């Protein structure tokens, strides 16, 4: 029925051209980051650098240059906070969602509603008291405080994703383990949780991307401290450079590389994570 005709070929060419047009900004990002400041001013923005140079990256990444400290500190802060938030969301979210999915008591489904409503509730309003609260507790500028806040803010998402998976898990595994005399903790840790690998992957990817790319929350909680994450570092750094696009683009590219590498290794998982996380 749907054969590959000349019309399909035309459709294919048009779609490829549209996708290429969509990706032009990435081309600009790469070529500009490989130019010297002078080349940026004197050559066309669309031209390939003659010759390409890595001096922007050397300037930003070599340990003895002035810019590198911020970049490395930003990378470290982003990695620590993202990892901390993911661990917290899995460690606290998975058992909670398991209880909600398996318990048949009335309070459990009511409490679960608390999480569902929290997903729709806009976060803007809560951030202000969260800021004053964190200030009082001395959590401002602390990477652990930041990770803790993310665990709280993203917990509804984690519980929601996990419970969708737990509901589809048949009871038989747990029943046979219980008959063999395994304790509740043992059943969860050794049987249920390992079976939930795909759910854990989805939570890690979605929450990880949200935290890694977030700008608003770290701008409020971490700006001015040693633990500003990459988006805030980029924001401050660009503010200090006046139109030095070669350097700006080099730091932008550095911040993207970890995510893009992960994306191309696990693109199916990323896309499914987004689609699956929303289907629920």
């Amino acid at each position, binding site marked *: 029925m749907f054969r590959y005709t000349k019309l399909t070929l035309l459709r294919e060419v048009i779609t490829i051209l549209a996708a290429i047009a969509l990706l032009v900004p990435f081309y600009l990002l790469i070529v500009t980051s490989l130019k010297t400041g002078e080349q940026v001013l004197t050559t066309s923005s669309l031209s390939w650098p003659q010759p390409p140079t890595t001096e922007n990256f050397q300037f930003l990444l070599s340990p003895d240059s002035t810019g590198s400290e911020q970049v490395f500190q930003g990378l470290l802060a982003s990695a620590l906070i993202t990892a901390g938030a993911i661990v917290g969301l899995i460690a606290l979210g998975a*058992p909670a969602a398991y*209880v909600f999915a398996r318990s048949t008591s009335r309070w459990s489904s009511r409490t679960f509603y608390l999480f569902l409503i929290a997903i729709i509730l806009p976060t803007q*309003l*809560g951030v202000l*008291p969260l800021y004053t609260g964190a200030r009082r507790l001395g959590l401002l500028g602390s990477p652990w405080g930041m990770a803790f806040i993310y665990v709280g803010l993203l*917990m509804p998402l984690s519980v*929601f994703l996990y419970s969708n998976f737990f509901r589809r898990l048949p009871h038989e595994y747990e029943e046979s383990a219980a008959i063999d005399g395994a304790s509740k903790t043992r059943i969860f840790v050794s049987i249920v949780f390992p079976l939930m690998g795909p759910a854990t992957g989805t939570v890690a990817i979605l929450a990880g991307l949200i935290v890694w790319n977030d700008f608003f929350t770290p701008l409020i909680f971490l700006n001015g401290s040693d633990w500003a994450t990459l*988006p805030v570092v*980029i924001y401050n750094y660009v503010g200090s450079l006046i139109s030095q696009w070669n350097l700006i683009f080099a730091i932008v590219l550095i911040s993207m590389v970890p995510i893009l590498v992960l994306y191309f290794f696990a693109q199916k998982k990323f896309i499914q994570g987004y689609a699956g996380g929303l289907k629920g």
Partner: protein
Amino acid sequence: MSVVTTQTTAAAAQLDRPPRRRRGKATSYRLSFGHWWWALPAVVLVIVTIYVTTAFGAFYAFTDWSGIGKWNWVGLENFQKIFKNPEMLGSLKNTLILAFGFLVLSNVIGLGFALALNRGLKSRYVLRTLVFMPVVIAPIAVSYIWKFVFAYDGPLNQTLALLGLEQYQQDWLAEPTLALAAILIVMVWQSIGFAMVIYLAGLATVPQEIEEAAALDGAGPIRRFFSVVWYQIQPSIAIATTLSLIQGLRVFDQVMALTAGGPAGATQTLATQVYQQTFQFGNFGFGAALALMLSLLILVFTVAQQRLTRDRD
């Protein structure tokens, strides 16, 4: 679907109640799946970081608190100030323009790519990966790439010169209307892949047989789309439009990076005003009032949209 599953669980809970009363073998075996207190840390955390803080935030909105020291209850004064201040009204207008422009454009273009890449094309898997790529990148990073595109000596003006269209060269981010359009383009560009993925998931549920039957009856591609596919992808439309509306109303990063609200506050949005008023000017009460307004706007539009899209079923 989540609501449906929760309701089913609630119904199941009702049905299970009589056997649960009598303490016997069945009860102990059901309870063997986890302890109730495993949920406690997550519940406490969500109540503290989301519910309590939101309640406090709503309370601040009716005070003149500066962030430190004493405060007074001022009633609706903050809201009166918002509606009397042309800059605040401008931010509200910008937020609505950006949100609805974003809703329409990202969904139309995303659906277009989804239809093109649904099946048939040999390159569809590669293209899907590439079109989705901008979604995973930080909005602030994306915004800086585009800031270069719109710069006076940037690629856009260079291309115009190349095409002999010098008269259209502009300082794109310095003129209020154009700057707002530029912000919108950046938002849409980054989210096309997101809408596409949701629509692809919807299109995958359309049975190929129905489409083929329609084609045999002589329906062209456009007719097939509006008479067959359109009804099948209603759930995707509901999800994608709701999410993009919420995302659009919260626009912050792109504005901060591209224009910082300028020129002269002409591209401020509610989210950037909340940030500026609260964290730069120390007007916590006033900032909270703006945040409360933004939150209510998001809630009202989300509920309204759910109603609208549900009625169409």
